[in-house]
């Protein structure tokens, strides 16, 4: 139960950060992709700096997480799917100005336009799963 509460609180920090930084506004993201405002670099850089420190230091501080048996490992792999998928992801991101986190967090700001994005994301993930279910094992979805 306590793990559930911590997960919601961690998500709330994440969501507050997405809203404070303006990432829940598609216009702000698009202004970055059009080289008019480089704020997104500060958002990603700030998030990455804290994450990098936590991911590198936490396992040295404690052998196990506070509420679980083991730390999970990232499964990024050097595979064609990673790059084809990322290229497509960028096209969709450039079309909408919204990525998965801000699409979810955007609902909390009362922005019901985000339902269009959420519907699209769910449909795209479904199609990818259908392809992966009938295709080669290499196309199976990964952690992320």
């Amino acid at each position, binding site marked *: 139960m306590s793990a559930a509460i911590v997960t919601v609180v961690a998500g709330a920090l994440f969501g507050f950060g997405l809203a404070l930084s303006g990432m829940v506004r598609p216009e702000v993201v698009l202004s970055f992709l059009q080289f008019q405002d480089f704020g997104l670099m500060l958002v990603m850089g700030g998030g990455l700096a804290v994450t990098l*420190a936590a991911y590198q230091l936490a396992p040295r501080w404690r052998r196990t997480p506070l509420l679980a048996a083991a*730390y999970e490992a990232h499964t990024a792999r050097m595979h064609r799917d990673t790059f084809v998928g990322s290229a497509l992801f960028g096209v969709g991101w450039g079309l909408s100005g919204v990525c998965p986190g801000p699409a979810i967090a955007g609902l909390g700001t009362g922005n019901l336009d985000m339902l269009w994005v959420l519907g699209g994301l769910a449909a795209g993930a479904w199609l990818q799963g259908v392809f992966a279910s009938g295709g080669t094992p290499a196309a199976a979805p990964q952690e992320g």
Partner: protein
Amino acid sequence: MQWFPLGWQHYLAGGLLIGAGVALLYVATGRLAGMSSVFTSSWSYVSSRAAFRQPRWLASRAWRLQLALGLVLGAALWWLLLGPAEPLATGVPAWRLALGGFVAGFGARLAGGCTSGHGICGMGSLKLPSLLAVLTFMATGFLTAMALSALGVAP
């Protein structure tokens, strides 16, 4: 030109808060806070397809929804404390939101991550494939947004 015409403090503060959430989740539960996976794992509640029935999705689908709930609550708290009186809205038309979401959803799940999964968690794990994934989607995102702008599709 100005690098940050809207100011820079809120960007950095927001990024640090995002990192704090990702760090808290990891230190407490060992979990990685990539946000695109919830769109795959949640299908396991209603679909019997093999890709959605993998143990990793069955085991993580509940906490991924808890994390998503947290995102909504955190953004709502910002709206209550610091946001405008009106709900946020966007001038980006519905067709771009839906089509962009669809393409991004397919692509992120094929790639195994998005701006948070590869951009923050993957690079935070010092994964070279994640760095290359970020450079790839930054490039195609830039090309797409610039092409739309050049065609006069605003914003």
